């Protein structure tokens, strides 16, 4: 307990220097600004804004990134509520009741409750990360290569179960991601793999390149198909503050959402998405007036927003304790850390405590900033959303181009992004979900490394994954989930949740 307070104090002392507060402030404003743009989720936002952190010292850069991350997330909810276009999958549920509230002229309270819920969840999850982070690093000692491999399998299966549409097609997407991640130099022998003799490919395909292409450009191509589809709430955003009954109704929802989100966020493989869905379903279940859901119930905004924020925060736990990025955004964070010479994993906490705790503290400050700066700025975001799409998308494209180019100063990367843009568009046309592909792409090299090591240690005996208890348990859970997902009864229910 004393350690916890001491650590958080250390973090605070790093995070509240004027420079760092300024960085969080800029980060969250810019993050929201980009995140508000329809079709741009937190992944594309962070990828786009990564270059602006290059010139900063490591601590400052990570603190600013945390600000951008939360800003982007909050921006995504703003778009969900005002335009009914979810910025990313974790705010899909927010659209349901959030946009309904907005249509009834209650956009202000909806936005406010989303921010308040997120802030509360952020506070709880921050303490949770701080409290669990240290003991869980001990868990890393129990994990050999076989366990790591099985854990990543579990994470990928999670992503499959959570993807909408066919389970089989989601599995093929994972494998496509894994296969794409094999391009480049082999880790052990340095052999060029599937590089077609192109020197730029010997480092592999950049993660940002794939993410930006598929999610950024692919999304623009899709949006251009129905330019008139955006219906921005025309009612003026008045009366920002939720009323007392609103707060009373939302309080329980925020609490439950936070608990669900914190627990599910720890799981690798897109915890934030399932957390928001689970929280929404639970609220509907426990509510005395379930018929209000989908018609602008404030609980339907409060619960998923707190849940996905809590999950976003606790998803740092697998990254910091085991060094496994549990979702694409975290993978981007890993990339940002590596650029600044930090290798994520248990050693960060012991070797660079001020960086680790500074980042944790700055997440909390980032959440606070959002409440303070964003509620007054809602009017500006609304005006931004009124800018016609024909002017917005060239801006998005040029910022993406500059962002990708500045990562390595390589025009080749920009061209690759264009190719992945087409790939993303093609995937949507054939009803393949790109999210599992990205996760497979992120985890591919780590999986291969651990698979190879495990096999080498076991002298080629593949049963090692089943004879080691932790590994066997993880694989059993993965299999169980997969079976559940294909079972007809549950499938129907899952589809119901997604179509709702």
């Amino acid at each position, binding site marked *: 307990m004393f350690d916890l307070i001491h650590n958080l104090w250390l973090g605070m002392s790093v995070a509240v220097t004027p420079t760092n507060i300024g960085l969080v402030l800029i980060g969250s404003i810019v993050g929201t600004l980009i995140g508000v743009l329809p079709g741009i989720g937190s992944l594309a936002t962070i990828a786009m804004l990564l270059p602006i952190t290059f010139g900063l010292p490591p601590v400052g850069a990570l603190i600013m990134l945390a600000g951008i991350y939360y800003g982007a997330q909050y921006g995504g909810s703003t778009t969900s509520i005002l335009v009914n276009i979810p910025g990313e999958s974790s705010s899909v549920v927010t659209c349901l009741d959030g946009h309904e509230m907005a249509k009834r002229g209650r956009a202000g309270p909806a936005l406010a409750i989303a921010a308040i819920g997120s802030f509360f969840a952020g506070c709880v999850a921050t303490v949770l990360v701080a409290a669990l982070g240290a003991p869980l690093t001990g868990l890393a000692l129990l994990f050999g290569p076989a366990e790591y491999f099985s854990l990543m399998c579990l994470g990928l299966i999670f992503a499959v179960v959570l993807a909408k549409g066919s389970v089989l097609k989601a599995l093929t997407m994972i494998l496509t991601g894994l296969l794409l991640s094999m391009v480049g130099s082999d880790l052990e022998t340095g052999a060029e793999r599937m590089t077609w003799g192109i020197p730029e490919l010997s480092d592999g395909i950049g993660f940002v390149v794939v993410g930006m292409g598929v999610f950024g450009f692919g999304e623009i191509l899709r949006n251009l198909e129905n330019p008139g589809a955006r219906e921005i709430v025309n009612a003026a955003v008045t009366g920002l503050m939720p009323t007392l009954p609103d707060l009373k109704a939302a309080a329980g929802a925020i609490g439950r959402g936070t608990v669900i989100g914190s627990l599910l966020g720890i799981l690798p493989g897109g915890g934030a998405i399932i957390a928001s869905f689970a929280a929404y379903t639970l609220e509907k279940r426990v509510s005395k007036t379930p018929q209000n859901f989908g018609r602008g119930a404030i609980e339907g905004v409060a619960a998923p927003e707190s849940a996905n924020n809590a999950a976003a925060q606790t998803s740092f736990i697998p990254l910091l304790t085991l060094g496994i990025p549990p979702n694409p955004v975290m993978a981007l964070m890993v990339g940002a850390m590596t650029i600044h010479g930090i290798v994520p994993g248990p050693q960060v906490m012991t070797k660079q405590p001020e960086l680790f705790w500074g980042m944790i503290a700055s997440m909390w400050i980032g959440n606070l900033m959002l409440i303070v700066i964003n509620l007054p700025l809602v009017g500006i975001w609304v005006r931004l959303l009124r800018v016609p799409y024909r002017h917005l998308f060239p801006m998005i494209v040029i910022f993406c181009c500059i962002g990708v180019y500045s990562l390595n100063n390589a025009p080749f990367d920009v061209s690759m992004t264009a190719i992945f*843009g087409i790939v993303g*568009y093609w995937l949507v*046309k054939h009803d393949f979900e790109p999210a599992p592909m990205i996760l497979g792409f992120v985890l591919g090299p780590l999986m291969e490394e651990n698979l190879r090591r495990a096999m080498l240690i076991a002298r080629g005996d593949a049963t090692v994954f089943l004879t080691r208890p932790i590994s066997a348990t993880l694989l059993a859970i993965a299999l169980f989930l997969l079976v559940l997902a294909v079972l007809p009864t549950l499938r129907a229910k899952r589809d119901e949740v997604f179509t709702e």
Partner: protein
Amino acid sequence: MSDATPSGDWSRSAAAQRQYNLKGGAVLAAVGLLLLVWSFFLQNPVPLAVHAAIVIFIAVGIAISAGLLRVLNPQDVYGGLALILLSLTAFVASNDLPGMRGFAFGPGTAPRLFAFALAALSLAVVVGGLVTSGPIVSSYKIRGVIFIIGSILSFAAAIRPLGLVIASFATMVICAAAAEDVKWKETLIVAAFVTAFCSVLFPYGLALPFQLWPRFW
């Protein structure tokens, strides 16, 4: 991210669908043929199984093109076939990499492992698409693809020799043409404004190494 499922159009006129299959099957067969030719130019001979798979793939492409195979779910059939093509390409591309040495993985083991699994699952997707019907592949917005992708590629081509100012202005203008309701006057103003903003923000504000003007300037 995508709440609107790709348009639930299930039918297209029979003639149009035949046209689509004719083109789709032909494209698949042609790419398969290229792959086959390429596989003969490798240092190590490609295993017979891979060759056989490519030949079968070409045959399936031709069969679809000729209307011998009924495509009930075009999304799944073409999607699955393209992924099979991807895994076959991976097999050919990783052919010269050494595989297992004793019980140690070689550099080629994991790619071929993943490629094999991908091929198997994609085959299941294709078979599913041949026996149960599903929505058609809604038509592509070619205008968007040409101008957006063109603008990105022109950025890649122009950024080194011509510098940030020209590259970003040109990219914005080309990109704007992708919208059907493009308004050129507004577009030029927005492009000029954004270019000015970028030229100040990235090289000066963020101190990133961008060259603003052409080299000979």
